[in-house]
């Protein structure tokens, strides 16, 4: 702790801060552009100038850049000093000479850091009367819109895109007034984190192209805290809505999870909520055709179905905990399925099992960033959990920070730390079947088949702790690689092992768990991170249930009267003929979902569910963190959150005593009561009753417009605003707002004088620290439940991979864009997704025909020499819908066919 004096007032600051951070944390307004809380300082914009005095007797002082000056004990500075103010006024005037002042037509207007800072400096009349330089803009793809004329050359974009996210195709061109930030030529930005440029850019150079199509000002939209539904990381988001449609997704800060950045799948995946594929009516199959029926009629029909034999429920890893629990309650635990077929079912349960038993620490994303050696085993985490990949990239910087410490350079001094640290790279070691997007920052890459990767992993564990089983028959090369990995992990202070379910291999996950456990045995505080396929995979795993295969067996044995499927697309889990068989063997099939799937045609009853943008609920991410999402839009017409449909079903068959839930809180309480593992989910977010001292938190801003006028073409009568179910937020502008509200309830960021997302500084206890109002979600499994011993080491070692003649092991390639179920329905993601191709090594044919589940598929081939022979990658779920696990396929080339 140090005490500094800002304009005569003493303020406590944290050690190692710079003056800008100290001033902002003290609640004083000081304008800045190039500094960013996650990117550090470079002193490029000169906007945060303050006067610093050498001591109480120094009356003259000197101008310093606050972001480049450490806050030292006893420092005396003045923000309001006339000379400093004048300096800042001139800087902003200068930066603005070429700015087009096109705020009325700019998407950034109203949430623009440049606007805020210009007002903050008091620059209100422009004197520059010459011609402005203009630029040509580029087409940067479906996500990001480019308007270079607005640029003030702060360099934040390239610092984020290149330095932080490892992107290569965005650069700073030319010099002086001609500075240009863009690509070498027009084209889609390659980085899967490009969307963050929208928030990183302090003005309107990079804006949201999709949002721009149905644009609304920030102050005109309703906001609600949400949780990303598109992978198992569980990034926190704010979703915006106006006039019934979801408009955009932006980052919501959670100091332990996603912090300042999202991936583009998460930012643009919400498009499914507006898409034509949404189910909006209740449908009943009569004579082979779906007819629209009233909700009550559908519920009565279910009651008659239920008399026709046992009811089996199939839940889903993309549905909330509440929906899964409601289904489980309705049908009974023994009749509830996770909605996952083998091997996904077993692997997901195994991940939960490892989470509960491992002696290693389960890291949050922020913990991952602090690790100093990372071993990624058999999971391309950048594709399956993109935000985790970004955190792993940050972990490679650890050594450069230590180098900076040794040279007494503060860690926030970004350019110096990076320049000096070029050759100080913390080890990231990658063992996967093929090259990944993280290879550029890896010190070691090993490409092999899943079984060989698992063997390598077990070998590493054995090298670290001899009690772990030895791997017989390793090649010399494999032993060397294992030795290097073990050595690097042992040399680290905080080693991390990452694996997951991507390659459908339990052995891989066991190997990763063994390495982490072995490191713990050797006294290293190891971390273990296992990536799962879906947003609530861990929630479903902790709840448990039957596999789909078991349900198929029950159906075959005639033990299924009615099958209820809640928010699951079975065609992604089961091969077509198995789906056919299953549906043919049940008497009634009821589907509750928000988006159409091939199942819909077969369903006797189709009930429209609310997607997460229209409902409240809880999801559990891969680290076992329960997080609440709240509705931002009102469910329209008969659309209901799935658990309400299930509650009504229960009532219709006289089971309402156990499921008489009115609100989300009732369900949450019931889950916490019944299932010990979920005892704490109530702590994920405040209850629906939550109020600030002066009332409920409003979900619309105080200046929202058009509340009555927006319907005036239909009716001029005032409409009462419907209540927002399951949310503590007020559905309108009525209510209250505070920068110290719980982090789980933030509907939008705003602080006096700060209209952009940079106002976040005012919501944090300290810059980059926890939210003032807390609530980062609740970790359900924080410490191992049982004492670990070496008897827990898995001894299930696979054999060496043996290629087969005429066949190839087809592995599921996870695509950031295209292979995840819901985001693939979003038009923007579909546009960004590249065509599905088979990746294989060697100078082979340009097309292959392979036979999978009895169906022949003719597929284009892309040469990828990073793959070992005998293996091929094909995107999971993209054109072969159910394909998501490794499978041997016989291969015919196009020539052979001819």
């Amino acid at each position, binding site marked *: 702790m140090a005490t500094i004096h800002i304009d005569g007032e003493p303020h406590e600051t944290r050690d190692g801060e710079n003056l800008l951070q100290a001033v902002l944390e003290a609640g004083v307004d000081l304008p800045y552009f190039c500094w960013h809380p996650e990117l550090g300082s470079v002193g490029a914009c000169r906007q945060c100038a303050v006067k610093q005095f050498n001591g109480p007797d120094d009356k003259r002082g000197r101008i310093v850049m606050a972001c480049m000056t450490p806050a030292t004990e006893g420092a005396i500075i003045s923000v309001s000093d006339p000379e400093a103010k004048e300096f800042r006024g001139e800087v902003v005037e200068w930066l603005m000479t070429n700015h087009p002042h096109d705020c009325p037509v700019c998407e950034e207007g109203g949430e623009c850091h440049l606007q805020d800072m210009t007002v903050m400096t008091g620059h209100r009349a422009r004197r520059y009367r010459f011609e402005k330089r203009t*630029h*040509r803009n*580029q087409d940067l793809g479906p996500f990001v819109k480019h308007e270079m004329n607005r640029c003030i050359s702060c360099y934040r974009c390239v610092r984020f895109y*290149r330095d932080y996210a490892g992107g*290569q*195709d*965005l*650069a*700073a*061109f*030319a*010099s*002086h007034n*001609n500075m*240009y930030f*863009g*690509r*070498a*030529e*027009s084209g889609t930005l390659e980085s899967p984190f490009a969307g963050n440029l929208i928030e990183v850019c302090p003005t309107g150079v990079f804006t949201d192209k999709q949002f721009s199509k149905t644009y609304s000002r920030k102050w005109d939209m309703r906001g609600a805290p949400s949780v990303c539904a598109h992978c198992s990381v569980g990034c926190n988001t704010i979703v915006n809505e106006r006039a019934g449609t979801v408009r955009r997704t932006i980052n919501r800060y959670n100091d332990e999870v996603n912090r300042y950045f999202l991936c583009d799948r998460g930012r643009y995946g919400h498009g499914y909520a507006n898409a034509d594929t949404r189910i909006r009516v209740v449908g009943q199959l009569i004579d082979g055709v779906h007819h629209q029926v009233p909700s009550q009629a559908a519920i009565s029909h279910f009651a008659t179905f239920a008399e026709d034999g046992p009811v089996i429920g199939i839940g889903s890893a993309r549905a909330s905990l509440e929906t899964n629990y409601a289904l489980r309650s309705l049908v009974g635990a023994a009749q509830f399925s996770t909605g996952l077929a083998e091997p996904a079912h077993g692997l997901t349960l195994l991940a939960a099992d490892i989470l509960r038993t491992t002696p290693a620490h389960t890291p949050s994303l922020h913990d991952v960033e602090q690790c100093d050696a990372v071993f990624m085993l058999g999971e391309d985490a950048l594709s399956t959990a993109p935000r985790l990949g970004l955190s792993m990239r940050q972990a490679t910087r650890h050594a450069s920070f230590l180098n900076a410490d040794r040279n007494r350079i503060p860690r926030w001094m970004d350019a110096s730390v990076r320049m000096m640290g*070029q050759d100080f790279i913390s080890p990231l070691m990658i063992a996967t079947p093929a090259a990944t997007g993280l290879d550029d920052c890896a010190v070691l890459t090993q490409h092999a088949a899943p079984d060989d990767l698992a063997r390598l992993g077990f070998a590493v564990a054995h090298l670290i702790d001899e009690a772990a089983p030895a791997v017989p028959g390793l090649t010399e090369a494999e032993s060397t690689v294992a030795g290097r990995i073990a050595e690097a992990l042992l040399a680290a202070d905080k080693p991390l092992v990452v694996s997951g379910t991507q390659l459908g291999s339990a052995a891989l996950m066991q190997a990763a768990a063994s390495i982490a456990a072995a490191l713990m045995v050797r006294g290293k505080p190891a971390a273990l991170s296992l990536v799962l396929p879906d947003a609530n995979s861990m929630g479903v795993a902790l709840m448990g249930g039957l596999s789909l295969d078991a349900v198929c067996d029950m159906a075959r044995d005639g033990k299924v009267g009615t099958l209820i499927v809640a928010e699951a697309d079975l065609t992604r889990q089961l091969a077509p003929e198995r789906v056919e068989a299953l549906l043919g063997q049940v008497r009634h099939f009821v589907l509750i979902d928000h988006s159409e799937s091939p199942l819909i045609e077969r369903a006797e009853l189709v009930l429209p569910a609310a997607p997460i943008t229209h409902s409240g609920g809880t999801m559990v991410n891969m680290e076992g963190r329960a997080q609440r999402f709240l509705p931002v839009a009102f469910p329209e017409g008969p659309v209901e959150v799935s658990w309400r449909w299930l509650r009504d079903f229960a009532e219709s068959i006289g089971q309402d005593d156990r499921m008489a839930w009115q609100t989300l809180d009732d369900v949450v309480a019931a889950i916490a009561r019944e299932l010990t593992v979920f005892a704490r989910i109530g702590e994920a977010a405040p209850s629906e009753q939550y109020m600030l001292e002066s009332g409920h938190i409003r979900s619309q801003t105080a200046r929202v417009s058009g509340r009555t006028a927006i319907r005036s073409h239909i009716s001029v009568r005032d409409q009462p605003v419907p209540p927002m179910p399951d949310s503590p937020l007020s559905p309108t502008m009525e209510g209250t707002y505070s920068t110290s509200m719980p982090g789980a309830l933030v509907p939008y960021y705003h602080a006096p004088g700060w209209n952009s997302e940079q106002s976040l500084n005012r919501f944090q206890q300290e810059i980059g620290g926890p939210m003032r109002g807390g609530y980062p979600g609740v970790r359900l499994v924080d410490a191992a439940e049982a004492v670990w011993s070496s008897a827990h080491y898995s001894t299930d070692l696979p054999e060496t991979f043996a290629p087969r003649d005429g066949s190839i092991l087809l592995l599921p390639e996870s695509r950031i864009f295209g292979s995840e179920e819901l985001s693939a329905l979003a038009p923007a993601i579909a546009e960004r997704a590249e065509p599905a191709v088979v990746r294989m090594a060697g100078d082979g044919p340009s097309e292959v025909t392979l036979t999978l589940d009895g169906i022949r598929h003719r597929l284009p081939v892309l040469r990828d020499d990073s793959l070992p022979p005998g293996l091929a990658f094909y995107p999971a779920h993209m054109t072969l819908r159910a394909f998501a696990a490794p499978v041997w396929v016989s291969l015919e080339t196009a020539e052979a066919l001819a």
Partner: protein
Amino acid sequence: MSIVETPASGVPAGTPPEFPQDLRDKIADMVAHEHHARGAAIEAMRLTQKRFGWLCDAHMREIAKLCSMSMADLDGIATFFNLLFRKPVGENVVMLCDSVSCWLMGEEKVRARFCEKLGIKRGQTTPDGKVTFLPIVCLGHCDHAPAMLVNEELYGNVDTETVDRVIDQMKNGSVRGES
């Protein structure tokens, strides 16, 4: 600016010649001697420009590959430097300083003379491909302002007579410095 995005002007670019093997070897050798491959980027571009007069996209891509850089990264460097040309230039390149000292000492007059005699504006090349006329930042020759660079020769105390003489020399094919 991104050169690639701006419409071509002046000398037609035409199809770029193959990137010669000897140049490729030379650059690969330079890369091998650098601590980081990208350290060779500027010299690689200088050598290529020396051979071809300017840096076309195809050659830039070759250099980027040799230096393990992205095209954007390399082009960011190329466009920073005034003496690396990303568009074709004429046989002679006249770069007239437009910084403060030179402006005070009559750069505008000199510029007007060039434009008038060559029949082009700043940033253009004469139709016969003889001369490209460009502005440049301070040449460090302020004590002899206005200053200019013709090809690699520095000129000081430039006046309209110097302009006439230099243009004559360029037409006759020989330019010598006189500072």
